């Protein structure tokens, strides 16, 4: 192995590369890199791209639990089995699923999209705002900072499904902490899960609580890379705290912010457990986001696999379009990654 890898380095440089020899040289130079990535490429191909392709294909069919078998077999009197082709076998239906989903004949695509957008925007805005505020506070020299930091990061340490249950418990209508506090303040207790906006509110609170620590720690890391001299100089020049924040902190945090906002948006958009476990879509599916809606379409009642795939393709398209525009916006501002 050693001799082979050493070969390209010691070989005399070829002045006039012909086509086959360039391929050959590329192989010599890169074979070990390719060998290193090979396992992952295989896994990606088998476990992600093959199912992805199949998922896209399924979205053009009418596959569901009832019509998935290719043959219907019946026991005959002699004990053998007679199989005949299933007349209602699933088949290619073209764009039918997309038409039905987008025109609202099945499911509530546009309603769910609206809820998803509110859910994502509010969630990420609070994650980022609160995370940034806390990071700035924690970046100051302050007594007990280590303790604050550990306490503030704790929500991240709790598995998401446990947090979801914890908040569902807190928002319980009869004996939850939230209603007990409201009663204590002299306000009537709220039936949280029987109205759309209060129900969505509980999910967003859960999500904000879950997501702030990540933003806080990430932005704190970003803040610490900003040289203190900049603040020193700005102060000597008489810059106010707000000006220092605008002119030093925000630009210094740009690349970190862009990454965490992109990741945060994608994660929140696709965040399954919170809605699934906290609101369970109550009341009557009004707080469903796209992922949970699609999931229920696929795995509750008569399982409609093709419809779920259609939703999957639509969700992925939305996210891809978003990230393309996001990257383009970044590039315009001179940010390349």
């Amino acid at each position: 192995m050693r001799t082979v890898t050493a070969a390209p380095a010691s070989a005399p440089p070829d002045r006039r590369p012909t086509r086959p020899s360039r391929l050959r040289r590329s192989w010599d130079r890169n074979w070990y890199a390719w060998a290193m990535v090979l396992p992952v490429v295989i896994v990606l191909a088998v476990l992600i791209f093959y199912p992805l392709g199949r998922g896209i294909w399924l979205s053009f069919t009418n596959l569901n639990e009832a019509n998935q078998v290719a043959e219907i077999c019946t026991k005959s009197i002699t004990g053998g089995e007679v199989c005949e082709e299933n007349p209602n076998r699933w088949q290619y239906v073209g764009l039918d699923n997309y038409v039905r989903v987008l025109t609202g004949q099945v499911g509530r695509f546009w309603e769910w999209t609206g809820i998803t957008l509110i859910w994502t925007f509010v969630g990420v805005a609070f994650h980022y705002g609160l995370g940034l505020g806390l990071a700035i506070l924690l970046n100051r020299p302050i007594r007990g900072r280590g303790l604050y930091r550990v306490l503030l990061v704790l929500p991240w340490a709790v598995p998401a499904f446990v947090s979801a249950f914890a908040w569902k418990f807190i928002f319980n209508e009869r004996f939850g902490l939230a209603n007990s506090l409201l009663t204590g303040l002299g306000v009537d207790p709220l039936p949280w899960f029987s109205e759309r906006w209060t129900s969505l509110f509980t999910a967003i609170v859960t999500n904000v609580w879950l997501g702030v620590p990540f933003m806080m720690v990430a932005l704190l890391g970003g803040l610490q890379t900003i040289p203190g001299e900049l603040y020193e100089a700005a102060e000597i020049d008489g810059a106010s705290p707000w000006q220092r924040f605008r002119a030093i902190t925000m630009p210094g945090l740009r690349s970190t912010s862009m990454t965490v906002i992109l990741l945060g948006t994608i994660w929140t958009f696709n965040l399954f457990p919170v809605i699934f476990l906290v609101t369970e879509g109550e009341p009557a599916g009004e707080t469903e986001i796209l992922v949970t809606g699609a999931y229920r379409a696929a795995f509750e009642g008569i399982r409609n696999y093709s419809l779920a795939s259609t939703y999957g393709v639509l969700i992925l398209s939305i996210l891809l379009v978003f990230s393309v525009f996001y990257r383009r916006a970044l590039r315009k501002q001179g940010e390349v990654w």
Partner: protein
Amino acid sequence: MSQSTSSGMAASTAGTPAAPIRAGATPTARAETTRRAGRSRRSPATSLLLHGTLIVASLVAIGPIVWVLLSSFKPGYAVQSTDLTLVQDPTLANYRYVLFDTSFLRWLLNSVIVAAGTMGIGIFLSATTGYAVSRFNFPGRRPLMMVFLVTQMFPVAILIVPIYTIMARLGLINTLPSLVIAYLTIAVPFCSWMLKGYFDSIPTSLDEAAALDGCGPFATFWRVVLPLARPAVAVTAFYTFLTAWGEVAYASAFIQTDNQFTLAYGLRQFVPQYNPQWEYLTAAAVLVTIPAGLVFLVAQRHLVSGLTAGGTKG
């Protein structure tokens, strides 16, 4: 704890302009506070506001956790009571019930098997990839990086159905391996991405030195870089473990019988639509959280630097 204080020191070193003066010294937090306060003239009111905000935020952060912890020691009637009490007739009965009279331990075992399997296979497969993507500029590198990012965008809904039908054809539905395979779709791109970020932070001069000493790329990776990256690998492994530990969607779809449930899905059994038993749920929640939480607190510092490094330098 020691980890958090040392991080505090590192942070203040970076944030203080007068770093050279106290380069060798290790000043106490108090001395530093006064120096900085002298510069920014923090008034008692500001200080009060600062601490007040942080205290409120900390209370919000730990409140729900503490509330669940307190509730787990209450008997059922106290949990279901509308009167707000912090402690009432404390008992360990909930824990005893959850541990010995339910399938909790079985679910715990299932979760450990699935999460450890995902973690082991995921790390094993992605370690060399992270290294190759970090070090070599080979054709296909950028597309691969893009794939890692794009797979972060995949909604559950798009892969779950095809994987489900594939598993059904292979007869793997309602088995733990089906979950491991499904989780690898999340774990492999994620681990590669994270590890790439960490390998970026290891100086390439080490690789060059190893190459001069006659190591091939594989030997360099195995003998030089991987040992140095051990903490990073540990953090990535742990995060992968946690992701699999807390996954709900695949587990709900693939697993159908009680003895194969993982914790994330099994815990739902305590709180059905009718007659939910919150006292048992809270006890189980505490049991699930404690081990994960402890290790996480040690690991989280490295986690974020890896994530954002992978993103910004890609």
